[in-house]
């Protein structure tokens, strides 16, 4: 019975892996990888909730008329998540470009080393 929630378990596992990566890594690029993973798990969540078992793409086709009523998947969450994917791509791109600038300014992308450099700056 637990297997019927397979998608949702995967979502939760990915969510946790992503969040853990964000928190535990000191490499700024790895943090962003974790962040992407974290967002992608939510995309999977939305896609799973729109899917109806046995459902097809919600396109009305003439040939289907007269045939038994087809079952459609819910298109709305899929469309919504398209927007969220774009947002995710934008976030990752912005994050990576910040990392490039940080590398130029500090000469490192390791969080611990950056913190050290920053605390020197304050003196």
């Amino acid at each position, binding site marked *: 019975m637990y297997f019927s929630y397979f998608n949702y378990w995967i979502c939760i596992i990915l969510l946790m892996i992503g*969040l853990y990566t*964000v928190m535990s890594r000191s490499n*700024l690029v790895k*943090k*962003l990888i974790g*962040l992407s993973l*974290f*967002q992608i798990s*939510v995309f999977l*969540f*939305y896609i799973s*909730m729109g899917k109806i078992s046995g459902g097809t793409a919600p396109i009305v086709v003439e040939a289907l008329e007269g045939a038994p009523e087809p079952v459609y998947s819910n298109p*709305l*969450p899929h469309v*919504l998540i398209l*927007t*969220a994917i774009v*947002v995710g791509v*934008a*976030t990752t791109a*912005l*994050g990576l470009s*910040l*990392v490039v*600038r*940080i590398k130029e*300014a*500090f000469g490192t992308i390791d969080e611990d080393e*950056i913190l050290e450099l*920053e605390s020197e*700056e*304050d003196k």
Partner: protein
Amino acid sequence: MVFLSTHLPILTVVIPLLSAAVCALLKGKNLPWALTTIISAISFLMSIQLLLEVNVSGPISYELGSWAPPWGIEYLVDPLNAFLLLIISGISTGVLLYARDSIASEVPEKQQGLFYAAYLLALTGMLGICITGDAFNIFVFLEIMSLSSYVLIAAGAPQDKRALTAAYQYLIIGTVGATFFLIGVGLLYVMTGTLNLADIASRFSEIEDTRPIRAAVGFLVVGIVIKLALFPFHVWLPNGYTYAPSVVTAFFAGTATKVSVYLLIRFIYTVFGGDYSFGIIDLADILLPLAVIGFLSMSAVAIFQKNIKRLLAYSSVAQLGYMVLGISLASESGLTASLVHVFNHAIVKTGLFLSVGCMFYAVGSVYLKDLEGIGQRMPITTFGFVLGGLGLIGVPLTPGFISKWYLILAALEKGSYLGYALVTAVLVSSLLAVIYIWRVVEVAYFRSPPEGTEKAEAPLSMLVPCWIFILGSFYFGIDTTINVGFAEAATSFLLGGS
């Protein structure tokens, strides 16, 4: 014009959004600034119009593309978000009047068009969050606001390279917050099959006792609270505010976190309903202690800062604690206090950050050690800072007094020891505010300026808007018909059954 006036709700958002693209193409330092200011002023006028209309004839529902809700996206203007629209566009316009010289000195000239484009996008995001009545739309606008604010904070990099790491940190935390929000919206959608806030609210009582809804409430509240920078989720805020350009700091201090306060109120009172939020699952049990610890500890932390911007940033976190305290009192007077404080704090904090911006313009640093004797070098600016500081402390005749008065009344209404304890906490925190403002005053007036420095005020184009905020704050501290009046209208609308 009749045609336009029926489309005000969408125009308020779309005009800044489209002008951002135009602005990115403009060259030089004057053109982008002028365009941004004009657009922001137009938004301001439109939100005044909306606020008046809403308070006379009730909520306005605008169907995007004539698709009726819940299928289409609905923009809903009611007394609560019209009040927020007024605050955001008003603060933004005031800050922009100030921005020209300040930005010219802090951002390289060829990037200014892009800078103002990002500013307009941030404004669009904030206005959009407030005006939309669609849960997913809120997420989209939240991200528009967040992405552009990361850029705006990183624009402080030429002054201090730590702006880059501050923006990065904000990006990580902000994205986690927004994604939590998205999960919450998804769970609400699974249970109700709709994304329209009013529609979710009308179906909420049937499903409120289910596990997905409890999870949704958790995710939404945590997501919003991260964006709101409530203690202990505030770590991104002090760095972001400290290293961003002065104008950006003033703009965000007045608006960005207020938008999240609005979202919290919107979800707690409109979507979940007060009975659910404070009855079935007692959100006050979580929010109230965090708010109290937040304003006490952050006021204390502010005392030990060496950098005025950072000091004021910590004080902002503390002030957000007051607003959340007002919400979590779960009463009409508490909510009014919270909304009044949203308005008052926006105007006072913006004024303070603008005067610090003037100091930065003249001195090139906002570290206390570099500002010794600033009271003699920049008498007008420093006096403005002191008056703003009085507003922050809550001296009578200032708006800070009005909001603390309402907050204390609301806390006393709670009765019992809890009420008295809360009042004591608010008073202790105000005393701490006296200390951190006094530290600046002491450095500014009781130390002699370093040898060889001359009297140098910031240009008038910066001083005048700064003083508009300072004097405006006194006006709103004496005549409270606008701030308290609209806050009460919004509260009675929210609680009086929509």
